[in-house]
Every structure is written in structure tokens, then in C-alpha cells.
């Protein structure tokens, strides 16, 4: 009996000791990712904005035990050399292996949603298309907030003006960060287009003049998801308009600017015959393909396509016969600030279902990817744009085509974030554009019905 009493007493003391030792955890001891001091040894803006990235204080303790992080990527890695190099550089800096998962683009959102819906920790960092899916992902409640890595007023000065507003969710928190950025430029054939058009009205006129039975004057895509939104959006921005009414979370295309853009695009196909009706089956790369094959005199597409156009194997018919110009402004009455295209962020977001040390490592990776060092590789190695504007002032940037025009385009680019179900809503635009081109409705009727469909489908306030 005496032995039993002693055993019970020892057990009780041990249990009490364990409980007391766990108090720091109960009392809200710092989570792993809270141990990192992002503003030390320097404020964030200085730390990531200098040519050599500086790790923040406390990172080693925060990521203790983390050996690997998994990051999803849009498409195959052979097309993303900068991503591969950046991941390697991060590994060398931190010792944390980065496994980049090459996910084919059409089902990428489905895969991302599957992981979140299953509350799986299988992937730490998900790539996402900011304009169309950010709000959706935020609304789903699946993301880990990353305000801490943006907690320095100086950091926003590194990026284009719309970045802060674009990344800030309606609840005031930030859940996304920058991976790759893009904007659009006008590519044209100097042998056919002697002077690059500066305005969309000039693009339309020039296209009419240079169209032959072997080459279209202008091409754009309207067949895949989101495709028609690219030219529509650019034309709207070039007039100073916007597509998204933020307060009402509504997409508006029947604004005066939207009507002008819609008319121009439908006229090019139906009236001018300077763009093919087969735009209805073009996916987002098909228009660039047409230009690369020498079957189009002009195209507005992502600057990264320059890599393809300068490759004699991929674009044999246009070698030494292509050039780049700023995205057009609407017409001559607009000032140069309206040489505007959309600001596309292929961003990263952190899965909230991973462990705290993994979150710390993931935040560190996001911190690195938006830095000058990483964005330098995006511009120089891969041919994307650089989110950190000062990268364009680097001497190496002079080697890329039209660096000044690209810097200006990035500084003026417009970032709009679509409401939840953004991709579903833009399908309605694609549908009604096809009704106009296919002759089911007049262009004006198709625009009005398309707007009505957008309003009916919009998420309630």
C-alpha cells in the first residue's frame, strides 16, 4: 500500500511538472513565424531592395526542423529558368530545399482548391493568378496572413503604385506576395508596319491597311478562359477606365470605355476583316503563335514572348523582323500616362494548414522571391518583368529589348482584382463576345446582354 502511495505521488508530481513546463505554450508563446524580425538587421525595404538579399533576424530559430518546402508552379520548369535559379539560391542561403511542383495550367486552380478543401498540408506555397483568383482564395479562408513581411512603409516604394492596394484584402490583411509579374507590349513587324502605332485607333487603321490573304493585320485571343479580357481590359485602361467597381464587387463592361473597346474588337473581325474570326478558338498563346509564324503583323502580348520571337527555331519566319513598342493609349487626345496595360501578378500564397515552422520557411521564401535579387533574375534570365522597378536601372537591363519602355509600362500598369468567381464571370464576357462574332446577336446587343449576365451572376454584397 505504501509503495502504491509513493507511485501515485511521483506520477502526480511529474504530471504537474509537465503542465507547468507547457504553460509558456498555453500562455501564447510566440509561434515559429513570429520569431522572425523582418525589420532587422535593416527595414524590410532596404533588406530586400538592395542588390544582395539579406536574411531577416531570427530566421534560423523559426525554421528549425524544416528541411523542405513545396511550391506549386504555373507550368513546366523549362519555361521558368528564373524560378529554378531563385529556388536554388534560396536553398543555398537557408539550407531549406525547395521542391517546385510543375502543374499544368488548365487544372491548376482545381488542384489548388482540392488541397485547400481537403485541409491538406501537402503543399506549402501555392502559386495563383492575382487578378482573377486572389479574392476567391481569400474568401475561402484558406490562407495564412503575411502582413508581417510587408510591415514597412518603405517596402511599397520598391514596387509599382497599385501593388499595395492590389495585395490588401477587404479585411485589411495581406495574403499574397509577388512571384512573377508581367505586362503587355505591342509587338509588330517593321517590314510591314513602318511606324509602330501609338494609339489603338492607329492600330485599327494600320491593321486594315496591312492585312493580306496571307497575313492578318492584328490578332488577339478570345477562345480560352480569360483571353478576351486581356485586350478588352487594355483598351479600357488606355482610356482611363476600369473594369471592376470595387465597392459593388461588380465587373462593368458597358461603360463608355468598355463600349469603345468592344466596338473596336468586333469591328476588327466583322467589319475591317483585319482580325480572323478564328480568334474564337484561340487560347492565350495562339495569338502570339500567329505572330511567331509570320501570319500577323501586330499583336499585343506579354513581354516574355520576346524570348520566343527571338528564337529562330520557334519563330523562323520573323527573325530580324519584329520589334516592340509600348502598349497603345486609346487615341491622340490621351496623354502618355495612358500607355497602360494590365499589371499581372503570378503570386504566391501560403497554405494555412501547414505547421508553424513550415509557415516560417514559406514566409522566408516569399520574402526572397519578391526581392531585388530574385526579380533581377526574372527580368534578365527569363524575360518577365521585374516587380522591383529599380532593377530596370541595373546596367544588365540594357541588354533586354526596350528596357526603358518596359520600365515605363510597369510603372503605369493597372492592377485590378476581380471579385470572387472572377473566372466564372469573365466566361460570361467570352460567351457574349462569341455571340457577337458568331452573328447570334449584334455587338451592341451582345454587350448589353453580357453586362446583364454579369450583374445577375455577381456575388451579393
Amino acid at each position, binding site marked *: 500500500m505504501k509503495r502504491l502511495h509513493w507511485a501515485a505521488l511521483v506520477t502526480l508530481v511529474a504530471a504537474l511538472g509537465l503542465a507547468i513546463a507547457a504553460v509558456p505554450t498555453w500562455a501564447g508563446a510566440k509561434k515559429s513565424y513570429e520569431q522572425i524580425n523582418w525589420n532587422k538587421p535593416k527595414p524590410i525595404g532596404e533588406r530586400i531592395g538592395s542588390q544582395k538579399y539579406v536574411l531577416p533576424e531570427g530566421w534560423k530559430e523559426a525554421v528549425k526542423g524544416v528541411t523542405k518546402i513545396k511550391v506549386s508552379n504555373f507550368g513546366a520548369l523549362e519555361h521558368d529558368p528564373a524560378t529554378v535559379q531563385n529556388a536554388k539560391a534560396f536553398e543555398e542561403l537557408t539550407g531549406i530545399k525547395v521542391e517546385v511542383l510543375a502543374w499544368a495550367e*488548365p*487544372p491548376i*486552380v*482545381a488542384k489548388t*482548391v482540392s488541397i485547400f*478543401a481537403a485541409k491538406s498540408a501537402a503543399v506549402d506555397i501555392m502559386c495563383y493568378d492575382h487578378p482573377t483568383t486572389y479574392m*476567391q482564395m481569400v*474568401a*475561402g*479562408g484558406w490562407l495564412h496572413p503575411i502582413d508581417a513581411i510587408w510591415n514597412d512603409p518603405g517596402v511599397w516604394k520598391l514596387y509599382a503604385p497599385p501593388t499595395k492596394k492590389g495585395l490588401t484584402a477587404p479585411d485589411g490583411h495581406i495574403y499574397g506576395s509577388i512571384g512573377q509579374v508581367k505586362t503587355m507590349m505591342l509587338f509588330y513587324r517593321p517590314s510591314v508596319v513602318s511606324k509602330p502605332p501609338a494609339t489603338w485607333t492607329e492600330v485599327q487603321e494600320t491593321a486594315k491597311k496591312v492585312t493580306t490573304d496571307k497575313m492578318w493585320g492584328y490578332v488577339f485571343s478570345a*477562345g*480560352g*478562359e480569360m483571353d478576351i479580357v486581356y485586350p478588352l481590359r487594355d483598351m479600357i485602361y488606355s482610356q482611363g477606365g476600369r473594369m471592376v467597381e470595387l465597392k459593388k464587387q461588380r465587373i462593368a463592361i458597358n461603360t463608355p470605355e468598355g463600349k469603345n473597346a468592344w466596338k473596336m474588337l468586333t469591328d476588327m473581325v466583322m467589319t475591317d476583316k483585319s482580325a*480572323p*474570326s*478564328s*480568334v*474564337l*478558338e484561340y*487560347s492565350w498563346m495562339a495569338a502570339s503563335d*500567329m505572330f511567331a*509564324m509570320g*501570319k500577323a503583323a501586330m499583336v499585343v502580348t506579354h513581354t516574355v514572348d520576346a524570348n520566343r520571337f527571338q528564337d529562330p527555331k520557334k519563330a523562323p519566319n520573323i527573325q530580324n523582323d519584329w520589334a516592340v513598342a509600348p502598349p497603345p493609349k486609346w487615341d491622340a487626345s490621351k496623354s502618355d500616362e495612358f500607355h497602360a496595360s494590365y499589371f499581372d501578378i503570378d503570386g504566391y500564397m501560403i497554405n494555412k494548414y501547414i505547421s508553424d515552422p513550415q509557415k516560417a520557411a514559406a514566409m522566408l521564401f516569399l520574402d526572397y522571391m519578391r526581392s531585388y535579387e530574385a526579380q533581377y533574375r526574372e527580368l534578365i534570365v527569363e524575360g518577365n518583368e521585374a516587380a522591383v522597378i529599380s532593377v530596370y536601372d541595373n546596367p544588365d537591363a540594357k541588354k533586354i529589348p526596350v528596357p526603358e519602355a518596359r520600365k515605363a509600362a510597369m510603372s503605369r500598369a493597372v492592377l485590378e482584382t476581380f471579385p*470572387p*468567381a472572377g*473566372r*466564372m464571370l469573365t*466566361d460570361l464576357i*467570352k*460567351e*457574349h463576345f*462569341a*455571340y457577337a*462574332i*458568331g452573328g*447570334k446577336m449584334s455587338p451592341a446587343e451582345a454587350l448589353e446582354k453580357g453586362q446583364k*449576365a454579369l450583374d445577375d451572376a455577381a*456575388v451579393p454584397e
Partner: protein
Amino acid sequence: MNASTLGVRRFRLSNPRYGLLLNIPGLLIVLLWVVFPALLLLAASFLRYDNVNPVSFTGFGNYQRLWNSRVFGISVERILVFSLGSTALTALGGLLLAMCLSNVRKGGGLLRSLMIIPWAVPAVVSGLIWKWMFSPDFGVVSDLLMKARLIAKPLSIYSDPSLAMWGVIIVDSWTRIPFMGIILLAALLSIPEQIHEAARVDGADTLKRFFYVTLPMIQGPLLIGLMITTIFSFRTIDLIIPLTAGGPGRATYVIGYYIWDQITKSLNFGLGAAAGVVLFLITSLITMIFVYLLREK
């Protein structure tokens, strides 16, 4: 002295108890992979689960939304057209193929192996190949037809809302004809030659033999082939995504695409689940019709 006298039961696999035991793994798989997900789907269809608002019970709210949805209505109409067209063309093509192959003596084995190829190619790959072949800008079909002066300008099948569905039906049938052909070939080859001979002796020509001898005798396998083809056609989107992405102008926007969009673009799991239940009910109804016809047969 034997096992019986010792009171030892002999192990017999033919004993129904063991049959039941051996079925348990299969039943478990069916329960886990078919029944349980189907019940989850049904449950989700009664929820407001749009990943924007908190998940809540909404009764028949999702079904009401489907009923009032213009886009869902389009998808139902499109899937009926697609299924009817694809099944009819598959049946016709399969029957023709089977009849041709049934008369081949030499090299029949090789031909049968080759005819499987369209069926073996993944649907996504088939879609891409056909899209590229029919591209008005660089497709081989338009190029050859124009060089042969059969057409004056390139064909734009997949960018023409009035032709796109036909284009999709043709490709879908191309992938399914081998399967139908195999079923019908087996059925044709099982018809005793004496019956054809007797019909010939009675004065029946080829056409009459086909309608009064061949067709009635292959009715069973034909109905089974039609049933399977119809059910498969209702769930087709893997071909449509690369070919037309549901366009142009929703011309090829079938129910499967609607469900895909609800789940992956709208993230409205409740509405997608309800559409899935509706699709399940439609295919069940069609299956029951075919089963009834088969029983009658």
C-alpha cells in the same frame, strides 16, 4: 473413420458463406469509392457551400438555382444534343466497322489491333490533335482541301458556333467507334453461318438479310453498346476542354463543363454537387430505359 465422423467440417469454396466472405473486399471498395462519395455529393447538394459565406443548410435552394439558371439550361440542352449525336454516329460507325471486319479473312487480327488506337489515345490528346488538324491557320485538313481546290477558304469548325458541336461529336465518335466495333464484331461473328445460308436460300438479298437476320440477332450487344456509349458521353469534358473550351458562345458547353466550372471557377461546391446529382439522375434514367429494353429483348 473420416472427416465427418471426426466432426471436422470440410472446407468448400462452393459454400455460399465463403462466397460472401470473398465478396467483402470488393464491397468495401464499392462502399468507400462509390457509395460514400455519392452520399457526400447528395449531402453537399443541400448545402450553401460557396466558399464565400459560412456553410449552411439550404434545402432545395441549389436545385432552385439550377432550375432558374440560364447557363445550366444551356448545358442540359447541349449535353442532350451531344449525347444523341455522338451515340448515333458511334453506333453507325461501329456497325459499319464491325461488318467490314467480319468479312476480312486475312490480316483481320492486325486490323482489329489497329482499330483500337483511337480508343487507346487519351481524350485530351485526341482533342488537341483534332484541333490542330482543323486549325484554319495552320491545320493540315484545310491546307489539303484548299490545295485540292475543294474549298476556297480555310474551314473554321471550332470557331463557328453552328459547326463546333458537330466537330466535337465527330471527334468523340472517332474515339468510341472502336469500342462499339469490338462489341458488335463479336456479336456478328457469333451468328451461325447456317442462318445466313438459310436466308439466302429463301431469296433474301443482302439488305433484307441485314435487317431481318443480322440486326435482330445483334440487338442485345447493340443495346449494351449504346447504353455504355450514352452514359460515357454524358460525362465527357476531357475532350471538349482542349477542343473548344465549351465554346464558342457555349456551343459545346455540356453539363460536365458546368460542374467543372462551379467547382473550380466559382468554388461553389453546393451548386456543383446539385448539378452532379441532376446528371446522375439523368444517366440513371437512361440506364433504366436501356435495362428495360434489354429485359424486353
